């Protein structure tokens, strides 16, 4: 078989795999949406909850600036922009992740995880992707509206370069956020504890504020634990402030994804089923 044929076959295989996963995501989304509409009251209350959450965050940010015009290099609207970017990252991640990090310990304990392992699909993908929370679309809309409002207040008109940089850094932030969450959730194979995932989300909530308002040591810590890439760096790109860290975000994202997947495959090797 010559190299052209091999390359052609490899490309075909890649496209087939990608289209298979896209069809699977569409199917899961469709059935998740139908399941969400079964409980209409819950569906409506969740939308109301997302709106309330956003209003409370705006209230808190305005309270910080009640006695001052700036905190560090940030004014109220730019801090609101950071919050909007954080919210958009969380909403997008949770759209595809749903509550899988929290339900994983129970599945492992009860033995139901075997049914995920036996599927003819990538285990890491299916473990954290077999459910979709479609109501996060409303969160996406609300947080996009916040970003739009903050941009208008700031009279932002980013160049093509900064817009492209924002897209890349935002995409990187999604990968980093998901990788951190799935890495900690993977510890469930040993700990059987969902509280660690809850603790992770609490720590990740710090990124709803710009992390460079803190002392240099804390900012450095949040760079090595790559939290600064989740919202502060993408927001800075949108504000036209490209830094060295902006260009570093994509390599950090790839590294975090690699570590997350390798750790997961290591954890699977130590899994022993609980079912009979």
């Amino acid at each position, binding site marked *: 078989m010559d190299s052209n044929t091999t390359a052609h076959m490899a490309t075909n295989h890649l496209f087939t795999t990608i289209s298979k996963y896209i069809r699977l995501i569409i199917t899961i989304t469709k059935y998740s949406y139908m399941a969400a509409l079964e409980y209409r*009251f*819950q569906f409506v209350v969740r939308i109301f909850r997302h709106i309330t959450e956003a209003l409370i965050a705006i209230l808190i940010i*305005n309270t910080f600036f009640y*006695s*001052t015009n700036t*905190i560090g290099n940030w004014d109220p609207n730019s801090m609101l922009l950071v919050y909007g970017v954080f919210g958009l990252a969380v909403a997008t991640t949770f759209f595809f992740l749903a509550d899988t990090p929290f339900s994983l310990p129970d599945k492992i304990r009860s033995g139901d995880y075997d049914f995920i392992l036996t599927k003819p699909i990538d285990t890491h993908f299916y473990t954290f992707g077999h459910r979709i929370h479609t109501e996060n679309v409303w969160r996406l809309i609300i947080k996009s509206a916040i970003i739009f409002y903050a941009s208008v207040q700031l009279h932002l008109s980013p160049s093509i370069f900064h817009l492209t940089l924002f897209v890349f850094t935002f995409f990187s932030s999604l990968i980093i956020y998901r990788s951190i969450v799935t890495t900690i959730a993977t510890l469930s194979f040993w700990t059987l504890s969902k509280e660690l995932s*809850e603790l992770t989300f609490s720590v990740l909530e710090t990124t709803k504020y710009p992390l460079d308002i803190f002392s240099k040591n804390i900012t450095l810590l949040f760079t090595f634990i790559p939290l600064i890439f989740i919202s502060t760096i993408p927001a800075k790109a949108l504000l036209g402030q490209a830094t060295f860290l902006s260009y570093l975000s994509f390599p950090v994202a790839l590294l975090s994804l690699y570590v997350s997947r390798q750790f997961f495959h290591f954890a699977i090797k130590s899994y022993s089923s609980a079912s009979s």
Partner: protein
Amino acid sequence: MKPLRLILHWANIHWQLFSEYRLGAFAWIINGLVGPLLMMTIWLVVAQHSSLAYNRSQIITYYILTIFVSRLTQAWSTSHVGRSIRDGRFSRTIIQPYHYLVEELGTTLGLKAIRFFTLIPIAVILYCLFHHDFSITFSTSKLCLFILALLLGFAINFYYRNTLAMLVFWLEEYYSLDALSSLASQAFSGNLIPLALAPPLFVSVMKYTPFRFFVSFPIEVVINQTITLQAFQGFSVGIIYLVVFLCVHQVLYHHGLKHYGAYGN
């Protein structure tokens, strides 16, 4: 005496259950520190750029007290009772020869006892880190009022959460109720924004919601230099809320039981 023995019995069961999963318990306790320490750090940064009603020492004192007060007044009945109504386990509770609140109080006190003991090493660590900035002057009367405020805050929270749980009889949904009430509680309890640092409109809303008694009111009793008329007014409002929630809960429980479908388990 019998209700007390029952409460201690359920508290003991949940103490042992919780002790089985020590790592989860440890993560849970650390989780309770993250929010207050983050808000404390941010307010300290804000204080560097403006003059606030609280100085650095008062901000640190406030948020360290928040960690303890929020844990001591916390209740989880909306999710506990709501979930048991939703999946039918409530049927087992209502056939017992005592009110379901006896079991729920025992459960809550058991979880609270664990938190209380795990707060001790945290208190030692925080004292070592912040003892230069921690400023409280305790008198006997202030200490008594603080304990009363804590008990009042816990009682209001307990009946408030149980009243919400009763809505599950009709709504068949507890998770979103719990999440919504937690959001409101976070915003208006003083967990995130101290009353003294809040804008006037926010203060006027916060002063008359029940959430203030979960965190802010007990801390105000301690931090204020003198016991003022405002403290006694606060206690009066708190007692009114307690009576209201008690009455509403009883009505909802009575009507909810008639409506209860006893989902299969």
